[in-house]
């Protein structure tokens, strides 16, 4: 028994329990302020350095004649969907410039939508009949024969199909569309021997069509789209511009406005953005840090004043609840 005596088994390990004396509290709050405020300021300034151009084009790209009936316009295959808009760059954007499309009120996180895909089918050629989770976009009837759709499911079926072309000073700016998807998705989740088949072949056409000669692992727009967004407002990477854009540049954006966001009241935007060490523009983090830091600083100052102006001895038992109210219950 005594042989396995140890301070651990006897629960006698050295322990330290902080007693929150005024000095300690003031010191800790001051330290928090000293750390948080600079971090917050740094994050905020980094976020501010991001140059971001956001351009919502869903209403502007509807011709005046269709203003009242945008759905008819977008659903009609014969209308001219090309839409040219001008954007001015306020300050210099350094390469790489990320080009995003941003959708709003689009529920990529709806359970029916999220589940409507077949990872097996996307990965392996042999599993092209594995479409049980894809209904109703699972089979297509061709010559009275049921053929599986590759890639099946609602997600792939509703692939975003607007396209952008950007010209700067009448010169085409190249939008690099390679390496916009996660490398792991390309190498493992989407098969290099799986080719689109029967995709958007009949019935209701959802979104973009795919080049049946390119394996899925090279269909980067699809891969990006298939990684469903968590919130109804989301950005997805469209491509990267690898040249700088100077301040006061007027760029021309040629948009093929194909995607039907009008039916469900969604919005579409084009976003050009640079990135810093905290990523894209996000002021929240910096502000949160600064707010917490300044609250700590205020508390520290307040306590300091109290401590100097109206000190009281520690551990004074007269402040205990039962001493404050003698004889009374509670």
């Amino acid at each position, binding site marked *: 028994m005594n042989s396995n005596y140890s301070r651990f088994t006897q*629960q*006698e390990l050295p*322990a330290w329990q902080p007693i929150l004396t005024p000095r300690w509290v003031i010191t800790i709050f001051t330290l928090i302020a000293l750390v948080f405020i600079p971090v917050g300021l740094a994050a905020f300034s980094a976020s501010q350095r991001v140059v971001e151009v956001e351009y919502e084009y869903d209403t502007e790209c509807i011709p005046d004649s269709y203003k009242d009936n945008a759905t008819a316009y977008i659903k009609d295959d014969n209308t001219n969907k090309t839409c040219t808009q001008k954007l001015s760059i306020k300050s210099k954007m350094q390469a790489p410039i990320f080009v995003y499309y941003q959708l709003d009120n689009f529920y990529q996180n709806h*359970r*029916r939508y999220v589940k409507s895909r077949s990872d097996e089918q996307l990965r392996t050629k042999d599993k092209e009949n594995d479409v049980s989770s894809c*209904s109703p976009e699972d089979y297509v009837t061709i010559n009275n024969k049921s053929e599986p759709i590759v890639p099946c499911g609602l997600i792939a079926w509703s692939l975003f199909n607007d396209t952008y072309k950007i010209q700067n000073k009448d010169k085409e700016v190249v939008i690099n569309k390679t390496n916009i998807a996660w490398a792991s998705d390309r190498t493992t989740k989407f098969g290099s021997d799986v080719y689109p088949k029967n995709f958007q072949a009949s019935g209701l056409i959802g979104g973009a069509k795919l080049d049946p000669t390119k394996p899925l692992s090279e269909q980067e727009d699809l891969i990006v789209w298939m990684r469903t967004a*968590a919130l109804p407002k989301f950005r997805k990477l469209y491509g990267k511009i690898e040249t700088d854009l100077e301040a006061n540049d007027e760029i021309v954006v040629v948009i093929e406005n194909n995607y039907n966001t009008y039916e469900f009241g969604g919005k579409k935007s084009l976003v050009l953005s640079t990135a810093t060490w905290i990523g894209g523009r996000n002021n929240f983090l910096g502000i949160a840090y600064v707010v917490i830091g300044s609250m700590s600083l205020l508390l520290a100052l307040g306590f300091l004043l109290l401590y100097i102006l109206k000190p009281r001895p520690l551990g004074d038992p007269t402040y205990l609840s*039962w001493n404050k109210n003698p004889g009374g219950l509670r």
Partner: protein
Amino acid sequence: MRGRRRMRKIRLSKIYSFALCGKGTLEGEHSQIGGQGFSRVVFCNEEGVMQNYSDNSVRSTKYTAVSFLPKSLFEQFRRVANFYFLVIGVLAMTKLAPYTAVSAIVPLCVIVGATMIKEGIEDWRRKTQDIEVNNRKVKVHKGDGVFEYTEWKNLRVGNIVKVEKDNFFPADLLLLSSSYEDAVCYVETMNLDGETNLKLKQGLDVTSSLQDDSNFRDFKAVVKCEDPNANLYSFIGSLEFEEQKYPLSPQQLLLRDSKLRNTDYVFGAIIFTGHDTKVIQNSTDPPSKRSKIERKMDRIIYFLFCLLFLIAFVGSILFGIATKDELDNGVMKRWYLRPDDSTIFFDPKRVASAAIFHFLTALMLYGFFIPISLYFSIELVKVLQSIFINQDVHMYYEEADKPAHARTSNLNEELGQVDTILSDKTGTLTCNSMEFIKCSIAGVAYGQGVTEVEQAMDRKIGSPLTHEQVYGTESESDENRKSSDRKTRIKGFNFTDERIMNGNWVNEPHADVIQKFFRVLAICHTAIPEVDEDTGNVSYEAESPDEAAFVISAKEIGFEFFKRTQTSLSVNEWDPVSGNKVERMYQLLNVLEFNSSRKRMSVIVKDEEGRISLLCKGADSVMFERLALNGREFEDKTLEHVQQYADAGLRTLILAYRELDENEYKEFNNAFYEAKNSVTADQETLIEEVSNKIERNLILLGATAVEDKLQNGVPDCIEKLARAGIKIWVLTGDKMETAINIGFSCCLLRQGMRQIIIHLDAPEIQALEKGGDKMAISKASRESVLRQISEAALQLTASRGASQQAFALIIDGKSLAYALDDSMKNLFLELAIRCASVICCRSSPKQKALVTKLVKSGTRKTTLAIGDGANDVGMLQEADIGIGISGFEGMQAVMSSDIAIAQFWYLERLLLVHGHWCYRRMSSMICYFFYKNITFGFTLFLYEVYASFSGEPAYNDWFLSLYSILFSSLPVIALGVFDQDVSASFLNYTNKECKMSSSAGAGSSAGCSTDSLVRQWFSSFA
């Protein structure tokens, strides 16, 4: 060996005048035989006769191999949360599930499997115990007078068994004969009632001659008796033997689990086997105990279920609205969801059913409100906590190599919540050994020993500073305790006084009185000496430990009693004249035995000079009035000393003697003989009257003081527990006087406390008892008890305003039986709660359990029962927490306890330190658990707002299921196992302070014994 055995072949029954005289008649109770409840017929020694009674194997396990799986699964899924997760697991297989089925089922399997494995291991331990007991061997008659060993489990009702010395009886036996001619035998009932003194049993005269194996070749008898029941102290039956009917009483019944002592062998016929035996009838099924926290937790879980249903309901309604919106007159809104070609779960055309299905989905999704691993984590934490309890060196009893042992880990945190402790006395508070410590002879007090109570009092008087030091430096006081233990001494003798020891008494002024005093001690008893033939040492087998203490101390002083025959006692005496040891023989004429109404015992002896004297010892209440006018020389002084001894918690007896002349004795003897041989029902009264006449005109010699040795640190521990606001009740099988004495010595009773004594010894009830009319007795008794209780309650109320006097309630077993009646028990409980201490004496095991139950259900507070004997088993099982003292004998209590400790005073550390820690840890852990799961669950719900309530989880499947059981459980478990809010050394002091403040009327105080955080939390739900 042989010689000794022969020498000991004496008719021991002769020295008992009272104990064995109560032979039953065939009238009265025995007329019920054959009627309802008395239907058992046992054909002894007849192999052929088929008897439909159960066999002698016992089973204490919860499960059998077959029933384990269904039964333990059932147990598991009786928990709401587990059942919920089972339903979820099944639902997860359908398309409703927001996540994959495996991720829902695996955690459930892990949790249930782990708990079942734990259950299985625990039951396996019980199983091995059973196997050991069932396979013990005993000699059984196989026919033709041949006895062979067989396993206990093979015994059948009616078998004749031969039990040898120091063995346990395998079943309830009818004593037929023993190695003594008159079929007496001694049994030790340690396992039944915790008392180590020997009890005498005697078989019927008709069978007493069956002393050889061969006698049983043609033995045939039929026993008709009562059906199996739990009453240890009653037995009604009759024996038909050689065409005669003889009545049977408890005196002939040897109970299973008691032990044959001092008797070489006995023959017995098996009456009750296995589960029919009285001991096992007395044991109730081990109830599965759950701690209060767990029950409260259940309430919170129900609350969370409500929350869950509410949220799921809200979610499904909103989902229904969102879904209905999808199709607007056949036009799709969110076309990418294809609402025109949907499944039932999302179909805008069938919104109602979609919403109902979604409700089920939501139940699964928000299931994270219910912490699946909570039960398991709690169990794990409790096991780890009990490992800490088991390893605590402060609760390790080095001498017996016994650490504390938490047998069921369910109740750790309950230890910090104890409100009432119900304690056994013998073996728990006391070591059940008496020590002769002081005496007053001829008005002079001898003996310098210090009793535990005096030590405790000294400490109380001592300055507060030293007091605190005692609390603070525990290791130091441990040392003291240990060192006082190590002192080698003679058992039963703790007397030091140079004036008397080593023959110095000869020089004392009243040497002749001293001589007579110790002679009384050496002669006036019923003990039997046992001489070790190699060393010449004498040891004694006495009926009670006090008696042994007297004989031993007489021996130590120089009056060595060494031989008893049927008619004489031999004593080696120190002769003051020659200065040598001289052997003196006293002819034993009569023994007037001790019983509780007489409260005294006398022997009449004739010494070698032919003088006849009556030597008497008895309680002060009966002795002083019997003194002769010329025998009161030392009365005042002695009285004063007796008072002092009583204050010091000692048991006192007054010693006196009287010389008788020949004629007087003859007259007495004739009357006595006549009375003894009378066959009328009032034989006992007659004997008493005769004895009464002779035990008068006594000459006072002095008083003895015997310490019923308390276990180490008992008064101190009781005091600390009392200061922590814990009430202590003592439930004992002992006599009332003894119980009161112990009450004083362990600080439960104090001088100045008003004692309320409820008993049924009133003359009118005793008169009724002689009449034998059962209805009348019970009616009168009930009324008497009710009257006493209500009077006491009135007294209490009356004194409440006037003085701060504390009351103590003392109640005896008989009254308790009525007080525990449904009609009266609430009154009784109310009275008992208002008293500072409660002592129940003469209580049977069943009564102990009933009292425990009453306190538990009546006060709704946590009760803790502590005991060491099999008689405490019921109580231990009934209480919220049962603590077994792992003493030297009798494992029954330990086997049925929840936590076993080696010494009573470890209770202090167990409750105040471990109890506090465990309770705090457990409560913060549970709060932490709910906190983390509720936050997690809410994030899921809030996310649904952004996912149009479609039921898509915010997190990945495996992250979801592992969050509870893996990712977030370790820090919580660490908190539950290691957290200490206050260090151990401060806890005693703190708890005292807390409770003191609360007794001052402050109510609960934050950070004290109960965790304020949890209180707030729980009170907001409960």
